[in-house]
């Protein structure tokens, strides 16, 4: 579905990363791990078409997206930003409705069919009860779910989630990642970034390690997340221990002696 080849990305003359090749298939969850400043956010902005690629190509469904309109790109590629406060107190249902922008003409307003799609998106995440609440008054975990619903309202084939678990409590982190798993079963591909390698074990089909703008490793979590690779990208000693009885492993940082 998504093919990235030879991609160099950055801001204008400042190159952040280069030589990036990766593909994402329909229904696949790709987890991006890397230290602060490793280029995750810049890569996401480039994938979303917010920054022009400095070199290489991004293809969606076999087609180079360089000439795609914003609307066409947004209709295929949903974006879930980190949940932050909003300036104006929109109702949750109106926030989700904004996800329909990529499906409507420039002068159009959403109609009953769009409202039905938005309501389904809320229901599918089991947060229909939030519809009439005010976005600025719900909790951080609820906001993150609402932003996922907003992206789903655009009926995308691929979701790009920038640290969807940042600033969420332990329970909400798990709930968000469980939804990521569920979306992939519905055939929606997800690329997400996180700072917690455990999240990759929890929800990812494949893991990409991004370090200083280059892909250090790309593969299934068990083979990619090792004490050596984590030590290399984060510069700290880590134990990676299989969880007895589960297919997951857990990572724990180690104190020196």
């Amino acid at each position, binding site marked *: 579905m998504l093919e990235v080849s030879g991609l160099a990305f950055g801001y204008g003359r400042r190159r952040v990363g280069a030589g990036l090749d990766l593909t994402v298939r329909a229904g696949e969850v790709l987890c991006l791990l890397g230290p602060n400043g490793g280029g995750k956010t810049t890569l996401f*902005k480039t994938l979303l078409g*917010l920054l022009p690629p400095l070199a290489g190509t991004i293809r969606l469904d076999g087609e180079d997206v360089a000439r795609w309109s914003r609307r066409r790109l947004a209709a295929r590629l949903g974006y879930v*930003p980190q949940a932050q406060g909003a300036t104006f107190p929109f109702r949750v249902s109106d926030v989700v409705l*904004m996800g329909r922008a990529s499906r409507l003409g420039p002068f159009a307003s959403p109609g009953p069919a769009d409202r039905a799609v938005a309501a389904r998106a809320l229901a599918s995440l089991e947060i229909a009860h939030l519809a009439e609440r005010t976005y600025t008054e719900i909790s951080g975990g609820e906001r993150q779910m609402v932003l996922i619903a907003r992206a789903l309202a655009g009926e995308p084939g691929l979701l790009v989630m920038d640290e969807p678990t940042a600033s969420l409590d332990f329970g909400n982190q798990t709930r968000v990642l469980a939804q990521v798993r569920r979306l992939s079963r519905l055939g929606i591909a997800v690329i997400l970034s996180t700072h917690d390698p455990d999240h990759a074990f929890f929800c990812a089909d494949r893991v990409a390690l991004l370090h200083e703008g280059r892909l250090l490793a790309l593969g299934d979590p068990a083979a990619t997340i090792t004490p050596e690779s984590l030590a290399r990208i984060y510069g700290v000693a880590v134990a990676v221990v299989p969880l007895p009885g589960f297919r997951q492993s857990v990572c724990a940082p180690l104190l020196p002696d």
Partner: protein
Amino acid sequence: MTPERETVPASEPLPGAPPHIRERLATLVLPVLLPILGLLALVVLALATGRYSVPVGDVFGILAGKLFGLPMRAEPAMQIVVLQVRLPRVLAALVVGAGLAAAGATYQGLFRNPLVSPDILGVSAGASLGAVLGIFLALPVAAIQGLAFAGGLGAVAAVYAVGAAVRRHDPVLTLVLAGVAIGAVLGSAISLLKVLADPYNQLPAITYWLLGSLASASLGDVAAILPAILLGLVPLMLLRWRMNLMSLGEEEARALGVETRVLRPVLIAAATLVTAAAVSVTGVIGWIGLLVPHVARLLVGPDFRRLLPASLILGAGYLLAVDLVARTIAPIEVPLGILTALIGAPFFLWLLASGKRGWA
């Protein structure tokens, strides 16, 4: 007060009525018809009230006579007061108030800041410099208005050009900072002209213009600015749902499929056109563009589909009411800028203190 929404049992005007009639009432009568009727009542009151009082019945008679060519029973003096003295003023108040409020609501959404007024990009400063220059050069009124209009558009164009040239930062922040800087330059030029102006003749005229007034507005003025104001309001009305997305910020809006690089200049141009046309006739009238969208947001929420029409109606009504006070409270005309601030600022503080805010 929520049109287009069936799920909200906001109010039930007729508990026993069939559901579809009740829905009609809830979505049409209360939020649309009632404010318009209120505004019309205010118009009649403004036409009737003044130093020369005209009975309300005669106001209707004169209006009906004029509109439908019926014979009029009211005295000629009354007809002159209503049709030639007050009507131009009332129409100007409606058009300018609605325009300033709509522009304010648009700027607040675009700049994601509820404290932004239509002056943020220097439109009032540019219009003021144009008008002050016209007064300083003792130009005719039409030329002063033309200079004010051109000055307002020119200032915003300069701010936008600076913002477009500085590409390294957040485009919205760059625009605001460029507006502050260019506004300061324009302000110093205005001060220089005030120092140089004839203190007996020109300086009072300049001061009066900078405080805003509808006293000299004529039907010709209204006809002159109406096309520009409508030209600005039409894109705002058409794009009002997209305005919701613009208020999310540049990156989120683009990621959701909005062509912000097209939409933002269109919206800024439209709001600037409306503001420049309005102040070119009335002078600078502060606070309407800041305050009215706030009140509208409290009443109908932040969704631009409802906020924009609500701002239009409230802005028209607010300026009409303030102008009514300005010409009746004292033997002399009180400049509007004094009253809009005097009434607006305490109200604004009350909004802040009572926690009834329309923003996060």
